[in-house]
């Protein structure tokens, strides 16, 4: 049989998928053991048990100074900021995207502006953001929102513009005015696409969140990583990175599930 036609069975596929992860884990374990053999107090490549102990300390032992369970208070702070930023961006993308995509006069007025804003690197305007909004929560949430909203808006507007003209004409012959069409025709059509846009924006949103928390902060996952970097505590940094990865994968999965549940018609092939 030719190589391109050899399909792995379901079990084999799972095993093949696990293989690279195991290889990375093994490589780490070997390197870590080698460094720890040379210097048992080495901080660069902590052993899995050291990382587990640190993670336990962060998740289950109240902090000496604040009495908080650090992992959970950091997670709550970061997820709160992420939700506020992504939520704002989603609301802006939905309202602005529909207006730009559906109303020609709004499109003429705003589409070029949104297109230009979407190519400005948000980190380049960071000093302006800081001066305008200070170092507090507002600046962090705004950085996330500014970072992802323009692209999401363009995505939604594009999807709205792709709604077949026949549907719009049909709605009008049935007596719909602009507002009715927005609510009854456009909104249901773009909702699944909006959720896709949110999923795609989550990666950049995490990046902006971590960046914002590195600037000035007193809690958060990014804050903790930059704080313990000062004393090279890789036993904290590596579990935090794994935790962020897990949160990101879980939120992506949940939005995908939500989309399938709420808009089954938009996932005809996947629904089985």
């Amino acid at each position, binding site marked *: 049989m030719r190589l391109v036609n050899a399909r792995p069975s379901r079990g084999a596929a799972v095993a093949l998928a696990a293989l690279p992860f195991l290889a990375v884990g093994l490589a780490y374990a070997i390197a870590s053991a080698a460094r720890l053999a040379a210097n048992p107090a080495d*901080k660069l490549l902590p052993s899995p048990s050291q990382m587990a102990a640190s993670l336990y300390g962060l998740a289950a032992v109240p902090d000496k100074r604040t009495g908080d369970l650090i992992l959970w208070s950091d997670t709550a702070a970061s997820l709160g900021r992420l939700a506020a930023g992504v939520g704002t961006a989603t609301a802006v993308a939905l309202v602005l995207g529909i207006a730009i995509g559906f109303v020609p006069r709004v499109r003429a007025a705003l589409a070029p502006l949104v297109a230009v804003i979407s190519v400005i690197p948000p980190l380049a305007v960071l000093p302006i953001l800081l001066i305008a909004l200070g170092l507090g929560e507002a600046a962090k949430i705004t950085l996330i929102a500014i970072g992802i909203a323009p692209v999401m808006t363009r995505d939604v507007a594009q999807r709205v513009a792709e709604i077949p003209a026949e549907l719009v004409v049909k709605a009008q012959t049935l007596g719909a005015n602009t507002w009715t069409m927005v609510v009854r025709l456009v909104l249901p059509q773009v909702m699944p696409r909006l959720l896709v846009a949110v999923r795609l924006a989550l990666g950049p949103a995490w990046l902006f969140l971590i960046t914002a928390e590195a*600037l000035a902060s007193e809690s958060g996952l990014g804050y903790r990583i930059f704080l313990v970097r000062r004393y090279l505590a890789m036993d904290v940094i590596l579990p935090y990175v794994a935790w962020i990865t897990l949160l990101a994968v879980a939120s992506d999965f949940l939005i995908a599930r939500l989309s399938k549940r709420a808009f089954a018609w938009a996932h005809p092939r996947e629904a089985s």
Partner: protein
Amino acid sequence: MIRKLAGAVLASTIAAFVAAGPAEAAPKKDFKVCWSIYVGWMPWGYLSDSGIMKKWADKYGINVEITRINDYVESINQYTAGGFDGCSMTNMDALSIPAGGGVDTTALIVGDFSNGNDAVILKDKKDFKDIAGQRVNLVELSVSHYLLARALDDAGMAEKDVTVVNTSDADMVAAWGTADVTATVTWKPLVSEILKDPAATAVFDSSKIPGEIIDLMVVNTETLKDNPDFGKALAGAWYEVMTLMTSDTPEGRAAKEEMAKASGTDLAGFDEQLATTMLFAKPADAAAFTRGADLPKTMDHVRNFLFDHGILGTNTTSVDAVGMAFADGSTLGDAANVKLRFDPAYMDLAAGGKL
């Protein structure tokens, strides 16, 4: 910063593969030293550029490469990871990062202590006690944080009376300009820049805890033990520059001018920073300070601060985990795990003219 972090992880992983075995203790010829921008460390840049380092290295038949690293914490991490044989850092960071990370480290040269370089600054307030209830922007877990803890202690307050906000030193001056920031703890030259604002008042500074924030040149203890010539060359070059820059001669002024330029200021600005730095220009003074009875007391303050903030490692259960040794052979903490040594031997050699 994220990229730097990723780079560090990658580099260290590769380094661990390449150099899996324990560092072989053998005499070597090539040494690497790093330093970062700070008034008390500018001589390292000068003695490298001016050829003074090469002169002393040649005398002992070795090579010493001196590298400036822009990010202070990164320079310490690089030293701790084994990328350098020596590095400039404060007493507190030497204890928390390399010593806490199991890298046996010797304070080869005690260069100076901060005597006003680090300050607590309030906006529109003139009394330290007004800090109560405020959000204080500072580089958390740094000497700034330590200074704040000592100042609060002096005023009969505790850290829970304020909210500490971790802020990068790179953003500190810009942050001061925003309405959110009403209190900060930082160091010169940032302090000088912030104090240009008429609303800013320095309400506490390191001159009130003299000798506690110490600037060192530390080297790997094992490397030093196997290669005493490395220590001799560094000490020789350092004290030659000290003599030069404190001499009231045109050459001395020229040297200081070059250091001022390298730190982004002019001679007047540099002299202003030097004025609040207790520089040990004479090796005998540095050695006497290292032998002083106050040093173990200071290091006890420092290690308690570090332990209370969980900086000696999240798994550390005792303040005694990392041991320190002093000039008279006494130790603090775990005597079986001494990782930070204050050793005046090379300063003594310089003082006795034996280099």
